[in-house]
């Protein structure tokens, strides 16, 4: 190990961004005039210098191997001068400045088979997601597998522009929400539904009891002695299954095959266009985990997208549509069941109750 310590370099930061830019991007930085989406997945940006770049946006799996990434690099070498990029939503973009390369590149992408064009405009783009059972220690669901199953079913919306507006779908595999899905048109959220199971024989060895108690946002945890062990007790009535205790204390796992599953949320957005940014709201509190293809989750999302597609006005995001028709109509039109779980009972609950005589039947 010493050999690696001797000449240690630290705190250099990432390579500078412009080292990664093709010449046309360097030359036209800040000079772009407008863009057009020529077809799903194909954008052209026009510069005031007269230069044009065509970007081919492809769906991709966020989880990949270097073998796959090498295929992407080879395509970039062959058609794009050795440059490419990823979008915020894990799409891959190949950029060409020579129009004659466009059709050959499209053909090469089609031949690859794992780089479908799409994800632009009024459609469904790639799902941003977390690790799930592939890598995380607190998940209630898998991530990559659910995303694959949902995108297979919505593929027709990925490579078309037939929705009223863009629909951003996100997935987080527990309430920690590394994916921060709380402002998405549709979000898929892993939820636990059973309080932690406590390993009294090991808790005091693995966890700091005061920190564990302090970690609970509803003060549901108190000190407890079980046999000869110093441990904690959880007041199940106050537990909202957030998992913060488990994050602080490995002796309190939450995962449970029968308890865990998916909640679906709708109507969030981060864009400021027209309406203010909005949080996603609860549509379905719980769907069981159904690996490998999660049919109930997939079908429910498809249903929501289809009802929205048929009912919303042009340019209207899912949340804007639900707000205009009223959430009571959202539940009626989608056929989703409304239950006591949909009524907020946490910190800002009262701000969501109806304080008016205005409503629809």
């Amino acid at each position, binding site marked *: 190990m010493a050999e690696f310590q001797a000449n240690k370099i630290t*705190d250099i930061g990432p390579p500078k961004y412009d080292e990664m830019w093709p010449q046309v991007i360097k030359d036209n930085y800040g000079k772009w005039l*407008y863009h057009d989406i020529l077809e799903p997945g194909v954008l052209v940006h026009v510069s005031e210098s007269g230069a044009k770049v065509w970007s081919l946006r492809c769906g991709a799996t966020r989880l990949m191997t270097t073998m796959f990434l090498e295929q992407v690099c080879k395509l970039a070498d062959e058609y794009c001068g050795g440059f490419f990029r990823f979008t915020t939503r894990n799409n891959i973009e190949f950029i060409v400045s020579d129009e004659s390369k466009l059709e050959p590149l499209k053909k090469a992408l089609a031949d690859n088979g794992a780089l479908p064009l799409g994800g632009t405009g009024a459609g469904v783009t790639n799902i941003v997601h977390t690790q799930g059972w592939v890598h995380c220690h607190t998940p209630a669901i898998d991530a990559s597998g659910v995303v694959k199953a949902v995108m297979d079913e919505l593929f027709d919306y990925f490579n078309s522009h037939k929705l009223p507006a863009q629909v951003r779908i996100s997935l987080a595999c527990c309430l920690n929400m590394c994916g921060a899905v709380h402002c998405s048109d549709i979000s898929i959220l892993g939820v636990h539904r059973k309080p932690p199971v406590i390993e009294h024989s090991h808790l005091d060895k693995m966890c700091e009891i005061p920190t564990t108690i302090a970690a609970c946002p509803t003060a549901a945890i108190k000190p407890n002695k079980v046999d000869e062990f110093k441990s904690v007790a959880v007041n199940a009535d106050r537990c909202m299954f957030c998992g913060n205790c488990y994050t602080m204390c490995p002796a309190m796992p939450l995962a449970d095959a029968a308890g865990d599953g998916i909640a679906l949320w709708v109507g969030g957005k981060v864009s400021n266009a027209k309406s203010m940014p909005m949080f996603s709201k609860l549509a379905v509190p719980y769907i069981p985990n159904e690996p490998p293809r999660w049919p109930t989750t997939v079908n429910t999302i498809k249903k929501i997208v289809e009802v929205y597609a048929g009912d919303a006005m042009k340019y209207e995001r899912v949340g804007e549509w639900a707000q205009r028709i009223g959430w009571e109509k959202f539940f009626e039109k989608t056929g989703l069941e409304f239950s006591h779980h949909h009524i907020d009972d946490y910190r800002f609950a009262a701000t969501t109750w109806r304080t008016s005589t205005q409503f629809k039947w």
Partner: protein
Amino acid sequence: MAKMHDTPMLDELTKGPWPSFVTDIKKAAEAGNEACADLLGQLELSYKDKEGHWKHGGIVGVLGYGGGVIGRYSDVPDLFPGVEHFHTLRVNQPASKFYKTERLREVMEIWNNRGSGMLNMHGSTGDMVLLGAFTEELEPIFAELTQKGWDLGGSGSALRTPACCVGKARCEFACIDTQDICYSLTQEYQDEMHRPAWPYKFKFKIDGCPNCCVASLARSDCAIIGTWRDDIRIDQEAVAAYVGGEIAAHGGANGADAKLDIKADVIDLCPTGCMFYEDGKLTINNAECTRCMHCINVMPRALRPGLDTGASILVGAKAPILEGAQMGSLIIPFIKMEEPYDEFKEFVEKMWDWWDENGKNRERIGELIQRLGLSAFIEAVELKPIPQMVKEPRSNPYIFYKEDEVPGGFERDIADYRKKHAR
């Protein structure tokens, strides 16, 4: 040769039109990669059990850094020895995620030689996420990465790797140099990123315009969002071309042949009603405009953001843990963002000092602002309260006056009071 496991459930995920991570990882496993074979084996077991199979945490890292590496161990290592250790390294991505293949291959080569060969492009915060290293490989990987000019990102209670949108590199809407701001903050605050010393995590995200493609106002403790304060630029000829149906509406986002109905699609959808179309001319009452971007989005050739550009700063966004999800609150309506960004960095350091001083363990700055009040935060960062900071003034009457705000202070003599008022 790697031992292949039966994965009947995962094999179902090799079907369908969307790219399959299973197909990809299986190919690598078949080529002899043991970590890939065992990852699929363990994932299949999770699909069967409907529970994950990773142990809780694990303290591993590289000397000199307090973060950048996330420890992970299998809880069924005897079955899947190739993923017994499955630590993650977060590698700081180049701003806005452009790659020169020659440079990216440096990372790929190191990762092929010393890791699992599996990775995320990219993690939720923005890093390249190298998934699956054994403990003994961490220092060598780190040494080799840095020798090639790559560094680790943030994890734990530290500054997380800043991220930004594509910005001026390829977007006509960008009002600020998102990449340069991202790079400058990343370089300036390397210590804050690599050595966790705060109550909890802190994220910067930089969006070039209010469309917020990197979700800064939902996902970062400090969102830097490009905006302008002069007038939207109008090209009346292009307006006429849109009205005449010569240019597709919305840059083709609703179909390459979508026609623009200027009244229905623009004038009537303007949230402030500040746009007018009369006698073939579009006018905007810019004093009423809130720069939402809708009209610019649907008529990108006719309308452009103004030229007096800068950023709006929103603070406090976060996911639910603990007090519930929050969006950022507008703290600085407009700030010029010019290199070296000193005015902004001064604000940042005041904000961090206050949080460091007052924050509880695992309290994000947004929650601290909730707990101590927006006014306290505004005072701490030495800004003047202005109406732009709130949607509306308070409707509850309990105002916490401070003693120095009231003539004579709070100290009074009950005897003086009783001289005028009988008991």
